[in-house]
């Protein structure tokens, strides 16, 4: 088997707040292989974006990695200095943000912003940079490159802006792109176009993609594997089709049950009762305990071990007898 592009191992992230220390992420372990698309799903506040920030090395000042490690292309990410980070970001590792409106600088031209990556990471001349940028624009389906070079962000539509942002991400040909809900702010038709674009990018650039979303439809369409996060833990991960057809964790089941579809027409849509426990409310047991329809006695006190079924892993006491114990 090839070596993973990114391997995260038993990662804990702690927030240092005036009230004390709180785990925001606990025991996060996963791998992303070359040319693979991995999704992260979960409700708001489950730690999806924080995971992305940890990989990018842009954790908030009051958060830090307290355990575990991240290995990206044979490098220990959490031991790197600012200088190494700057060489890595944009070049080998980059990120696409949710809001295409605000991820472009309103006072700089599109051409300047996209070529910035090349200016920082390559020794290409101004002319070569422009050619490279226009080639990338063609690949992401942006028309009229000459006009676009001099345009400002406010002159573009939301879909075009997101294409520009994607162009900025792929132009350095990074090994890993992290996309934090890149389609959430777009309308449905544009969303479909951008998703096709992500698929064609994967074929063109052979990069790995970590795709954060809360939309199962998007996840199913684009991802190879998916991780379900709940309250700072990965509760289940596996191949997308398998996991969506045979969810094991009660939380995954509830999430999938909450998707509206034609067969549920006229019925009341299922919602998971309660909320994600906040940082301060998290206890030692299973964080889903309060909301779980299948809760047992041991769930309150002890966080379950992870059990493996073929390529699917799940952290739930229900599977204590069946699965391979870790």
């Amino acid at each position: 088997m090839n070596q993973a592009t990114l391997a995260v191992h038993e990662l804990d992230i702690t927030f240092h707040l005036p009230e004390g220390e709180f785990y925001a992420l606990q025991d996060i372990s996963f791998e992303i292989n070359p040319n693979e698309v991995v999704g992260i799903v979960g409700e708001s506040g489950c730690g999806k974006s924080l995971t992305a920030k940890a990989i990018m090395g842009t954790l908030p000042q009051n958060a830090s990695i307290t355990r575990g490690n991240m290995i990206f292309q044979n490098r220990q990410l959490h031991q790197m200095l600012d200088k190494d980070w700057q060489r890595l970001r944009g070049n080998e590792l980059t990120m696409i943000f949710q809001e295409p409106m605000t991820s472009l600088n309103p006072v700089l031209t599109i051409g300047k912003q996209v070529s910035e990556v090349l200016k920082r990471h390559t020794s290409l001349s101004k002319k070569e940079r422009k050619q490279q940028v226009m080639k990338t624009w063609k690949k992401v389906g942006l028309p009229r490159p000459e006009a676009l070079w001099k345009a400002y962000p406010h002159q573009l539509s939301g879909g075009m802006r997101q294409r520009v942002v994607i162009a900025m991400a792929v132009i350095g040909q990074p090994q890993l792109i992290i996309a934090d809900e890149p389609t959430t702010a777009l309308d449905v038709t544009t969303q479909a176009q951008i998703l096709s674009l992500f698929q064609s990018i994967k074929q063109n650039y052979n990069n790995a993609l970590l795709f954060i979303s809360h939309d199962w439809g998007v996840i199913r369409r684009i991802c190879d594997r998916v991780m379900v996060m709940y309250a700072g833990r990965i509760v289940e991960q596996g191949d997308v089709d398998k996991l969506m057809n045979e969810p094991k964790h009660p939380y995954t089941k509830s999430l999938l049950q909450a998707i509206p579809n034609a067969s549920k027409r006229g019925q009341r849509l299922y919602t998971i009762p309660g909320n994600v426990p906040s940082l301060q409310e998290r206890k030692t047991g299973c964080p889903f305990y309060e909301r779980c329809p299948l809760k047992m006695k041991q769930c309150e006190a002890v966080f379950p071990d992870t059990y493996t079924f073929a390529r699917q892993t799940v952290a739930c006491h229900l599977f204590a007898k069946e699965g391979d114990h870790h």
Partner: protein
Amino acid sequence: MRSNRLPLYIGLTFVGSLFVMMLIGVFYTPYDPNAMDATNRLALPSATHLFGTDNFGRDIFSRVMEGTKTAFFIGTTAVSIGLFFGFLFGAFAGYFGGWIDEILMRFIDAMLAFPGILLAIMLVAVFEPGIKNTVIALGVMSVPAFARIIRSTFIQYKSYDFVKASIAKGGSALHIMLKHILPNALSPIFVAASLSFSGSVLAESGLSYLGLGVQPPDPSWGRMLKEAQPYIATAPWYVVIVGVVITVLVLGFNLLSDGMRDIHDKRV
């Protein structure tokens, strides 16, 4: 609602005409500004002496033109000094935050605690009066205002996604500060610079009036005001003309900054 551009245009006219006067003054003045004419003292404004003559018979119009150079020189230099150090303090404090912010801003607070004009008088008294020390004093005086405005815009913009996007592209802190945040902060900086310019000119007039600013033979509006004072009853036009010229420049820059702020606010 359409924005009212009138203040901007009036301000531009005032500042522009004085600027043109300065440019002409570099090459040509109707009379030698320092040439005395004992037979023609305190003459009324006339076709030969547009603004009249002073107590030594010197042409006031020529001297006002000479003074324009000093005023613009002092304004520009003081604003540049203030802007440079204000940017250093404000940008680093705003972008990095935390203890860097605390230390830099407490330093600025300490500077603010001194009344500006007293600080200038102190500086000039310790060293020696003259155009160089006046400019330094006025520049130092304007640092806190710039630092605070620049800091607040940097705090505002550093949380924007395009800053995070630039980090994701591998941008260094300095690159982000200069290439991404600064262009966004230009409007408020222009407004502050324009206000600070008029403030500096006014403060220079005040210092020179007290005899602490620009020293003879360098021409200065403030000193002309002082020289005109004894003749306020016999030759009132002298003091009025100099006063009006100072007012036009200060008012011009204030209107300019008001006008620019209005345009900036509209866009937001």
